[in-house]
C-alpha cells in the first residue's frame, strides 16, 4: 500500500510540474488585470521550440531559455494587442492559442532532420532526468519529492518566491493594485501599462517553461498536441488557486494526481474503458469550475482581480 501511494505521488509530481509553471505564470498575468487565454498555444510553442533546440544543440539550458523566449514573445504580442491596442482580451488570447497550436504543429513537421522527413516526431533528444537526493529519496511516502528532475526542483523555490513577491514586496503590492483597480494604482504613481506588459510577459515565459517540461522531462520528445489541453486546464487551476501562487500547487497536485490514478488503473488492467479514464482530468476541470464559482458566490470577498479583462485608459471619463 505504501509503495502504491509512493509511486502515485511520484507520477503526480511529474505530471503536475508543467501545470504549476503555467498556473503561477497565469496567476501573475491575471493579477495585473490581463486574461491570457493563449496558454495552450504558448505551452505548445514552448514544447516544440525547446525540444528542437535541445535536439540540435544538445544543451538543455539553451532549450529552456528558448521556451521562455518563445512563450514571452507570444505573451508580449498579447500585451501589445490588449494593453496598447485595447483589443478584446478573450479574442486576442484565443488567437494566440490558435496561432501557437498551428505554428507548433507546423514546426514539428519542418524542423526535423532530413532523414526523418523533417519531422520532429519520433526523435530522441536530450532530456531532464530525475536526480535523487541521497537518503531523502529513499524515505517512504515522501521519497518521490526528493527524486525529481531539475525543473521540478526549481519549482520548490519558485512557488514560495512567487508567493512572497506577490504579498510581501512593494512590486507585488503594485501588481495586485493594478489588477484590482488600475485607476487607483495610476493615481498613486504606478505605471499601469508597464506593470501589465511586464507580468503578462513573465506569465508567458513561465508558461513556455511549462511546455518545455513536457517535451524535455515528462514525455520527452515531440508529439502533436503534447499538451493535451493542459493550457485550458490551467485556466481552471488559476480559479481553483484563487489567484494565489501558493495554492497553485494544490490544483496541480489534484490534476497530476488524477492523471496518476488514471495511469495506474489502466496499467492494472481495469474494466473501465480507457476513453472514460482519459476524460477524467477534463471532467474534473468542469466540476472544479462549477464548484468554485458556486462557492465564490456564497463566500464574500474571494474572487478574480476586480479589473481582470478590463482595458484601462487614463483620460477616459
Amino acid at each position, binding site marked *: 500500500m505504501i509503495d502504491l501511494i509512493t509511486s502515485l505521488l511520484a507520477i503526480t509530481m511529474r505530471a503536475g510540474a508543467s501545470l504549476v509553471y503555467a498556473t503561477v505564470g497565469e496567476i501573475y498575468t491575471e493579477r495585473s488585470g490581463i486574461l491570457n487565454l493563449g496558454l495552450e498555444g504558448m505551452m505548445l510553442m514552448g514544447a516544440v521550440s525547446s525540444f528542437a533546440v535541445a535536439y540540435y544543440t544538445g544543451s538543455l539550458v539553451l532549450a529552456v531559455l528558448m521556451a521562455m523566449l518563445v512563450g514571452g514573445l507570444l505573451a508580449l504580442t498579447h500585451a501589445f494587442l490588449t494593453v496598447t491596442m485595447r483589443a478584446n482580451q478573450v479574442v486576442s488570447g484565443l488567437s494566440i492559442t490558435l496561432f501557437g497550436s498551428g505554428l507548433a504543429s507546423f514546426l514539428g513537421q519542418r524542423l526535423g532532420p532530413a532523414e526523418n522527413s523533417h519531422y520532429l516526431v519520433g526523435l530522441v533528444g536530450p532530456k531532464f532526468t530525475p536526480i535523487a537526493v541521497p537518503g531523502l529519496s529513499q524515505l517512504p511516502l515522501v521519497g518521490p519529492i526528493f527524486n525529481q528532475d531539475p525543473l521540478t526542483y526549481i519549482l520548490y523555490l519558485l512557488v514560495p518566491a512567487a508567493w512572497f513577491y506577490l504579498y*510581501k514586496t512593494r512590486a507585488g*503590492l503594485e501588481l495586485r493594485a493594478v489588477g484590482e483597480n488600475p485607476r487607483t494604482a495610476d493615481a498613486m504613481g504606478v505605471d499601469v501599462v508597464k506593470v501589465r506588459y511586464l507580468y503578462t510577459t513573465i506569465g508567458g515565459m513561465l508558461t513556455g517553461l511549462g511546455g518545455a517540461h513536457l517535451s524535455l522531462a515528462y514525455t520527452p520528445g515531440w508529439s502533436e498536441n503534447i499538451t493535451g489541453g493542459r493550457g485550458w486546464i490551467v485556466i481552471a487551476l488559476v480559479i481553483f488557486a484563487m489567484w494565489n501562487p501558493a495554492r497553485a500547487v494544490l490544483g496541480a497536485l489534484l490534476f497530476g494526481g488524477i492523471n496518476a490514478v488514471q495511469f495506474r488503473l489502466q496499467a492494472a488492467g481495469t474494466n473501465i474503458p480507457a476513453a472514460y479514464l482519459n476524460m477524467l482530468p477534463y471532467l474534473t476541470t468542469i466540476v472544479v469550475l462549477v464548484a468554485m464559482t458556486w462557492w465564490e458566490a456564497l463566500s464574500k470577498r474571494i474572487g478574480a482581480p476586480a479589473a481582470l479583462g478590463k482595458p484601462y485608459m487614463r*483620460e477616459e471619463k
Partner: protein
Amino acid sequence: MNDTQETPVPILEMRGITKRFPGVLANDHVDLELYPGEVLALLGENGAGKSTLMNILVGLYRPDEGEIYVRGRRVEIHSPRDAAALGIGMVHQNFMLVPTMTVAENIILGLRDLPFVPDLAQVSQRIREISERYNLHVDPDAYIWQLSVGEQQRVEILKLIYRGAEILILDEPTAVLTPQEARELNKVIHMMTAEGKSAIFITHKMEEVMEFSDWVRVLRQGKLVAVKRTAETSPQELARLMVGREVLFRLERKPREPGDVVLELQDVHADDDKGLPALRGVSFTIREGEILGIAGVAGNGQRELAEVITGLRKVKAGHIFINGEEVTNKPPREIITHGVSHIPADRIGMGAVGNLPVADNLAMKGYRHEPLSSKLGILNPRRIIDFARRLIQTYRIATPTPQTRIKFLSGGNIQKAILAREINACKGLLVAVYPSRGLDVGATEAVRKRLLEQRDAGKAVLLISEDLEELLSVADRIAVLFEGQVMGIVKSDEADIELLGLMMAGIKDPAMLRM
C-alpha cells in the same frame, strides 16, 4: 491672509489652462493662484470643469495649453508621480483605494522610498502617529472594504499626509459625510493649513465655500468667471456667479393633507449583493399626496430599499403593501401594473438604454399596450414618435431629434427623459433614487418641481437623497436610514439639521419615533 503689498510667492499658480475633450471645451484659459496656509474653494456646477482642472494638476490629464508654476518654478506634470514629487496630492471624488487591501498597503502603494520588502508594522506605527496627531482615527491593518465611507475618506487624507503633500486637493469631500463628519473634516483641513499647507476645495455648495475657504474661484462652462475673498461675498452672489442667473433656493411646497396609505412596509429585511443584511426591519407608510424623504449616508441600505419596493431584490422577511395589496417578492412587471414608477440611481445602467433613440427610451414603459403597439404586439413607430415628441415638449428635454441616441444627451436631459417616462406612467407611487445627483442647478430645480407636482396631484413619492437641503425643501417627512434601520422619521418643517446628522451617524432618538 496674505498682504498683497508684500507680494508673497504663491505656492501654486496655473496660467491659461485649456483642456479639450472631443466636442467639449472643459477648461478655457483658466488661471489659479494658491498661497501657503490658504484654503481655496473652487466652485462650479457639474461639468463646469473643476475636476478636469484638478486632474490636470495631479497629472492624470495633460493640458492642451497653459503653464503651471509650483513655488515660483515652471513645472511639467506628466503623471501622478510627478505631482506627488511636487507635494501635490488629491482626494478624489470616487476614492482611489483598493478595497481588497489594508489601509497600510493602500497608503504605501506606489511609494518608492521604501525598502523592496516594506516593514508593514513600522508603516502602521507611523500611520497611527499621524492619525493621533490629526485626529483621523482608523485602524491601519483593517481592509478598506471593512470601512465606512467616512473612514475611507480619512484613509485618503492620511495617505496625503503620509506622503508629505503640501498642496491638498479635495474633490467634493463632504458629499459622503454627515454634517458632523463634515465639521470634523473642516477642523483637520484647518490644522493642516495652520502648519503652512494649502488646500483646494472643490464643491458646488455655497454653504461649504463660506465655511471652509479663504478665497473662492468660480468656474462656469470651463471659464473662470470670478475670484472673490470669501469674507467679502455671500452665498447668493456665489450662486448667481455659478449659474449665471438668480437662483431660487426654496421651492414652494403647499400644505396638503395626505390621503389614503399607498405604500406600506412592515418590518422588511433584505440582504445586499454580498449576502450581508442591508435592510434590518424597515417599516413606514407613504400616503397619497405625500413625499417621504429617505436621508442617510450612501450605503446604508438606500439602494436595497428602492429595489425591494420595485421588485428587483428579494425580501427575506416582512411585508410590502401597495394600496393595501401585498406585493412582497412579486416580479417587477407585476409591481409596475400596481402603478409603481422607478427613477433608479444608475441613470445610464438601469434607467435608460444608451444606444437606443430617445423615443424608444421614452416608450419603454408603454410599448406593451395600445396605442404604442397593436393588439398583436407589433410596435407602431409613428405613434411612438408622436408620444415622444409630446413628452420632449412637456418636459423640455433638450435633444436634437426624438431619434437621437439617448447617450449623446447631457446627464440632466437623460434624467429629464427618465423622469418624463416614469411620471407619465405613474399611477400611484413614484420611487426616486438620487434623482438630482450630478445635475446642474437648473436641472435639479426642474426635477424637484416635477416631484412636487406629482405630490400635489395626489401621488405618493419616495425620495431617496443624500442632499439634506433637497429633502428639507421637497419632502413632507424625512426618515433617516442607518445600517438598514430607520433611526427616526421627522416632519421636515420641524426638522433640525443637527438631529438629522446625529441620526445619520446611527443615534436613535426615541422621541422622534412617535410618528
